[in-house]
C-alpha cells in the first residue's frame, strides 16, 4: 500500500525528519488560505499515487497567492497517468542548493533490506543508476541484525557526500530505518533530500509503501488507504476478494492462479489480441467467485469477448460451470465467452454448460486447450 506524500511526510516528521511547512488542500479556497499563511511563495504538488508527477505537470511553483490559485484551477481535475487530481499539497518554497537521495527498500536477492544513498537526487533512482552508477552507494541490511552505524558510515563515504552533512544524514537514515521497521514498510524513501541555503537538510518528497500483508498488525493504517485512487472496477473486485487489474485491451481474461492468468494474457498477445485485464479467481474457486468474476469483467465497456481459462486442480470444473451459468442467467450477459475447462470434474462441468447453451441464447464456445481458446477469443474480438 503506497501512501500519499502528505501522509508519508506527516509520519516522517513524527520521527524527527525535517519537512517544509505545508498543508493539504482539497479545493481552491483551501489553496488560497494556505498560500496566504505561507506568504505567497509556494509549491503546489498534486497528490496522486504515481511516479513522475513533476514531468507530467503535477508539481508547480507559484510566486504569489493569485498565481497559486490560478495554477490550482488547472491542477484540480487534471489526470496524471490515469489518476485524477483531487488533492493538492501546498508547501513553502525552499532555496535548495543541493539535492540527494536516501532510500531503504526490500532487497529480494539478498533477503534483507538495501540502504541506498546517492549524492544526486531529484530524478528516478533507476535513471541515476544507469547514468551515474558510481554515484549510487548501497549496503544490505540483515533484518535480524538490523542497521548499524558503520554501515551508514560506509554508504556516506562511498557516496562522496561532504562530511559536514554526515551527522545529520545519519540521524535521518536511522529514522527512516525505524519507520521501515515500525510500519513494516517495503520502501521508505526521500527523493530529493535537499540541503537549503541555511545548510538544513529537508525532505522535499516522501515515499512510504507498506506491506499489505502486515496491515492486520497496523489497523490504524487501514484508514490511510485512498480508494478514490483505485479504478472503480478494481475497487469492486477487491471488495469481492478477486485479484483484478484493469488493462487497456478488449479481451476479458479469467483464469485460476496468477501464473496461469499471466500465461493466458500472453497467449492472447501471441495470437495478436489485447487483454482487457488480469483476473485470478484463485485456487479452489467457488461458483460464487466465478460468478463475481464474470460480472466484474462484463462491467468493462471495452470488453468484446471473454476468455475463461480454468485448469481444475483443487478447483472443480462443475463448480466453475455453475458460477458461469448463474452469471449468464442473472445478469443477461450478451458478450461471447470462450471457455476452456480442464482437470477435476471436467466432464460434469462440460455437461452442465452444454445443457445451458441448449436452453438459453448464451454465446459460450467450449474449446479443448488454452492455445485454441486464445486463438478463438482473438478471432471473435476482431
Amino acid at each position: 500500500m503506497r501512501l500519499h506524500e502528505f501522509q508519508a511526510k506527516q509520519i516522517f516528521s513524527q520521527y524527527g525528519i525535517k519537512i517544509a511547512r505545508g498543508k493539504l488542500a482539497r479545493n481552491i479556497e483551501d489553496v488560497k488560505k494556505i498560500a496566504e499563511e505561507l506568504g505567497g511563495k509556494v509549491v503546489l504538488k498534486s497528490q496522486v499515487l504515481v511516479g513522475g508527477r513533476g514531468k507530467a505537470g503535477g508539481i508547480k511553483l507559484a510566486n504569489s497567492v493569485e498565481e497559486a490559485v490560478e495554477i490550482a484551477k488547472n491542477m484540480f481535475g487534471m489526470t496524471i497517468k490515469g489518476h485524477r487530481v483531487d488533492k493538492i499539497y501546498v508547501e513553502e518554497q525552499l532555496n535548495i542548493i543541493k539535492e540527494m537521495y536516501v532510500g531503504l527498500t526490500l532487497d529480494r536477492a539478498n533477503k534483507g533490506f538495501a540502504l541506498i544513498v546517492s549524492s544526486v537526487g531529484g530524478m528516478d533512482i533507476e535513471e541515476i543508476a544507469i547514468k551515474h552508477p558510481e554515484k549510487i552507494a548501497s549496503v544490505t541490511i540483515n533484518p535480524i541484525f538490523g542497521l548499524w552505524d558503520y554501515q551508514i558510515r560506509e554508504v556516506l563515504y562511498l557516496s562522496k557526500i561532504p562530511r559536514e552533512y554526515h551527522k545529520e544524514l545519519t540521524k535521518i537514515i536511522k529514522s527512516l530505518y525505524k519507520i521501515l521497521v515500525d510500519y513494516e514498510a517495503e520502501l521508505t524513501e526521500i527523493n530529493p533530500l535537499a540541503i537549503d541555503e541555511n545548510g538544513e537538510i529537508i525532505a522535499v518528497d516522501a515515499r512510504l509503501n507498506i506491506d499489505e500483508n502486515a496491515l492486520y498488525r497496523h489497523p490504524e493504517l487501514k484508514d490511510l488507504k485512498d480508494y478514490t485512487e483505485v479504478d472503480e472496477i478494481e475497487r469492486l473486485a477487491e471488495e469481492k476478494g478477486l485479484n483484478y487489474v484493469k488493462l487497456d485491451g478488449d479481451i476479458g481474461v479469467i483464469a485460476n492462479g496468477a501464473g496461469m492468468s499471466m500465461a493466458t494474457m500472453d497467449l492472447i498477445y501471441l495470437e495478436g489480441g489485447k487483454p482487457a485485464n488480469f483476473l485470478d479467481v484463485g485456487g479452489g474457486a467457488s461458483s460464487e467467485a466465478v460468478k463475481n468474476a464474470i460480472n466484474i469483467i462484463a462491467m468493462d465497456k471495452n470488453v468484446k469477448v471473454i476468455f475463461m481459462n480454468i485448469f481444475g486442480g483443487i478447483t472443480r470444473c462443475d463448480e466453475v460451470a455453475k458460477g458461469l451459468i448463474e452469471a449468464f442467467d442473472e445478469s443477461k450477459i450478451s458478450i461471447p465467452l470462450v471457455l476452456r475447462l480442464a482437470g477435476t470434474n471436467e466432464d460434469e462441468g462440460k455437461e452442465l454448460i452444454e445443457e445451458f447453451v441448449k436452453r438459453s441464447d448464451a454465446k459460450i464456445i467450449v474449446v479443448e486447450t488454452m492455445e485454441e481458446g486464445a486463438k478463438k477469443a482473438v478471432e471473435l474480438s476482431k
Partner: protein
Amino acid sequence: MAIIIDEKTTAIVQGITGSQGRFHTQRMLAYGTRIVAGVTPGKGGSEVFGVPVFDRVKEAVDETGADASIIFVPAPFAGDAIAEAVDAGIKTIICITEGIPVHDELKIYRKVKERDAILIGPNCPGVMSVGKSHLGIMPPHIFMEGDVGIVSRSGTLTYQIAHNLTKLGVGQSTVVGIGGDRIIGTSFTEILKMFEEDEQTEIVVLIGEIGGTDEEDAAKFIEGMEKPVVAYIAGITAPPGKRMGHAGAIIEGGKGSAESKIKALREVGVEVGKTPMEVAEIVKRMKSRG
C-alpha cells in the same frame, strides 16, 4: 531417487485441524504419503483421519520421529509455525500459506538457513515426488512417474505443463512449487542443483514469471549444468508497476521483466517455450532424440 521427499519421508501437518489442513491431509494420505502426526496448539490428544494431533511440534517429532513438515497455518501464525518446526529439528519444511508479512518472511529465511533446513514456499503448492510422496495441494491424477523434474513459481501453470507432458507420455520425477512470494525459502538455483545430482531426473523444466531476478540468477547456474533445462516465463504482457496477483509478480523499472529473463535463459542455451504446450513438445522432442 527424486528430490526433497520420497517414499521414506515421514511428515507432520501443522494446522491439521483447520479446513485446509484436514482436506489436504486426507488427499495426501490417499496418495500414500506417510503423514505420522498433526500439530494444532490446543487440540493435542485428538485425531484427524487416524493421525494423532499434538500441541507442539517438538512433542510430535519426539513421538513419531518425523523428518518433514507441511504447514497450513493462517498467515498471522505461519512464521511462528515455521520457526517452531526449525527449532524442533525438522529439516524439510513446506509452507503452503499465502499472505505472510514480508518482514516475517525475511526473519524466517535467516532462521531456516542458520539451521541448515530447507523451506519450500511460502505461498506454494508444495512438492510431489511422483509415485512416492506428496506434500502439497497438487492434483495427483495429472502426473505420471518419469524422469523430468519441474520447478516452478506458479501453481496452476505447473499443473498445466505437467498435464501436457503426461498427455505426451512424458513422466515426471519431482515437481516443486517454490512459491510466488518475493521472499521464498528456496531459489530456482538451489532446486536445479538438487535435480542435477538426482539420478532419476534427466531433463528439468523451469517455470518462471516476472519479478525479481531469480530466473536470471538460475541462468548462471544452468550454464554449468550437465542436464538440459527447458523454460517457460509468464508475464510478457504484464505492464510495469502493476501487481499481478502474486506478491512476486511485479515489475519495477524494467528489472525482472519477462524479456530480461527469457534473454538470460536463451543466452545459456535454454530452450524457452512460447506456450505451455510448446514447453511439453520441446521436452518430448529432446527425449525422442535421446
